[in-house]
Every structure is written in structure tokens, then in C-alpha cells.
């Protein structure tokens, strides 16, 4: 971004406070803190995850642009200050936990897909996302085919027939088609401390690392 962050290292919120607001245990949060440290120091070690660091973590390439990664980043960055801090990271990841209620995932997905934040998901937004996905996978479908897919989707989801999907219609649609929320659950999150034994638990002394495998 070119500007110097003067706020310094983000103050670490008390894990037990965060745990209460999320599906994570305190131990999970400690393990996720190590992941956060890894991501947030990958380009600049400033205690925040920048867009480039996020892209690096996700794609292995800090310069890779993706409509979807942009949306996720914006959703994680509650304060819209251009970086993801630890609290934002954990609270956002909590949505992806297998135990998080469907209603939260449904609400999150709606905001994610509401690209222009109008409280509606319109045809043009859906088309933009479908095209982005096809481009990303090097798949090509004819314009008629894409239109047909979108028409069919709106036929099912747009119950009021006003050409756009509002939150109420989305809730109905997602409840009937739970597989559209597949990307909002990361099974790994259930067993962080056991799935990722290489996330070390640090003691107070910086140099001493106790590795639990």
C-alpha cells in the first residue's frame, strides 16, 4: 500500500474472549495464532495480513488476482482498513467451522455474493461470478449456456420475480440447496490442534519452542 503503519504490532486480544465469540476453543485459537503469524509475516512482519499476504497464502502467488479472494478478504477485514488483524481473522474463520450454525453461513454467503453491497444479489453479479469462476478454471461455455444457467437459477431463487435475490429469498434457496454452501465449511477447523501438529505452542521465552507432535 505504500504507507507506513504506525499502530505497530496489533495487540493480541485475549484468546478466551475470542473463544467465547466463536466456535473455537482457546487451544484452537493458540494454534491459529501460529497460522496467523505465518501468514502475517510472509511479506512484511507487521502483525497484519495484507491483501498480498492473503493471496500468497491462498494461491502461492502474492500477485494473483481473484474476485473471490477479494470478496473474502473484504469480509474478513471488518474495519475496512486494508488489513486483516488477528481478531478479525479468528472471528471470520469461525464462520467456516463445521459446528457453526447454517444460518450464520447463509448470512455470510449472502453478503459475500452481494458484490456491490446493495442488499440484493442481481443477475449481473451472478453472471460476473460465474464468468470469473469459468475463467479461473480455463473453462469456456457459450454465452447462451451461461444465460440459461443463470435463468434457471433465478427461476428457482427469485420467488418474488423482481429480477434480484434478497436475503429472505436467499435463505429459502440455500436451505433447499445446502450444497451451495459447501465452500463455507472447512473440515480441518474441527481438529486444528491434532490436524496441524507442526503448529508449535510457544512458551514465554521467544527462543524456546516446545514442539508437540
Amino acid at each position: 500500500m505504500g504507507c507506513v503503519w504506525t499502530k505497530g504490532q496489533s495487540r493480541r486480544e485475549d484468546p478466551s474472549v475470542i473463544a467465547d465469540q466463536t466456535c473455537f476453543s482457546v487451544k484452537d485459537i493458540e494454534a491459529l495464532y501460529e497460522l496467523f503469524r505465518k501468514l502475517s509475516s510472509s511479506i512484511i512482519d507487521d502483525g497484519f495480513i495484507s491483501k498480498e499476504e492473503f493471496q500468497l497464502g491462498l494461491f502461492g502467488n502474492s500477485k494473483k488476482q481473484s474476485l473471490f479472494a477479494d470478496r473474502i478478504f473484504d469480509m474478513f477485514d471488518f474495519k475496512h482498513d486494508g488489513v486483516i488483524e488477528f481478531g478479525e481473522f479468528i472471528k471470520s474463520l469461525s464462520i467456516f467451522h463445521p459446528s457453526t450454525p447454517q444460518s450464520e453461513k447463509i448470512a455470510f454467503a449472502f453478503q459475500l455474493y452481494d458484490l456491490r453491497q446493495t442488499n440484493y444479489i442481481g443477475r449481473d453479479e451472478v453472471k460476473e461470478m460465474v464468468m470469473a469462476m469459468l475463467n479461473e478454471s480455463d473453462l469456456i461455455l457459450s454465452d447462451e449456456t451461461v444465460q440459461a444457467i443463470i435463468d434457471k437459477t433465478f427461476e428457482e431463487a427469485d420467488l418474488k420475480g423482481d429480477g434480484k435475490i434478497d436475503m429472505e429469498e436467499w435463505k429459502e434457496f440455500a436451505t433447499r440447496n445446502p450444497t451451495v454452501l459447501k465452500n463455507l465449511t472447512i473440515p480441518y477447523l474441527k481438529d486444528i490442534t491434532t490436524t496441524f501438529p507442526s503448529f508449535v505452542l510457544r512458551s514465554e521465552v521467544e527462543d524456546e519452542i516446545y514442539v508437540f507432535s
Partner: protein
Amino acid sequence: MNQSELKVKQSETLNAFHIISLSEGFDLSPLFEEKKREEKEELRFATTKPASSVISKLEDLAKSVKFSVRKSESRVRLEGSERGRKGKLSIEAEIFAMTPSFLVVEVKKDGGDTLEYNQFCSKELRPALKDICWTSPAENPTPA
């Protein structure tokens, strides 16, 4: 599931939000994995062949390497009989219909050692699936 139910399932297509949810950018699991995406064990390809062709290719492959097969309307699971470094190698293929004549198949490791999976993919899986993969017009002038 009887024959007619199977047919209905196969002609159901994905809606736009299913397609969108398949996007890489929405998949946060690489953040948790130590390997880079290039080494990731997920294989995705498109095909204009019917689902039955994809399934029978996988069944033929399984037979040739003595893997067992379990299938449902849109999923095929292959499992090796020998225990490898991390148990039996198992692979799952999921078939998604973008349109009735354009499918996307996602293959991933379901169990077992990743190195063995990668070897299996390059030695057995990719060659077996090569002639049903549809590639974009630059490489192959067949339209979708």
C-alpha cells in the same frame, strides 16, 4: 437407487451458485495446508462425455490396478487393497454437470499417503483420463 432415479439425477444440472462455490478463490483450505497449491492433490477436468463414460473409465482403471470401486449417482470411490504408508490409498471422483453435456469432474485423495496418491495420479489416473478430458479451444477446436 433404481435406473429411472439415476437418470433424473444425471440430468439435473448445477445452478449458478453451485458453480460459483467450486471456485478456487473461495476455497480457504490452502491456508491450512503446508504444501503449495501446485502440489495440491486435487485434479479437476472438464469433459463433454456423459457421466457414464467417466464412471466406466474409472471402473476400468480400478480393475487394472486391482482397486475396489464404490459408486453413487455422481461419485466414484476407488480404494487400494494394500496398506501403504498411511493406510489404504483411496480416491474420490465427484461429477458435476454444468450443463447436461458439459461435466466437471473433481478428483481428490480421500485417504492414504499423499506421495502415493501423487504417484498414482501421474502414473495411472491422468493417462487413463487423458482421452476424455476436454480442453479449451486453443488446444482442441471442439466447442462445448
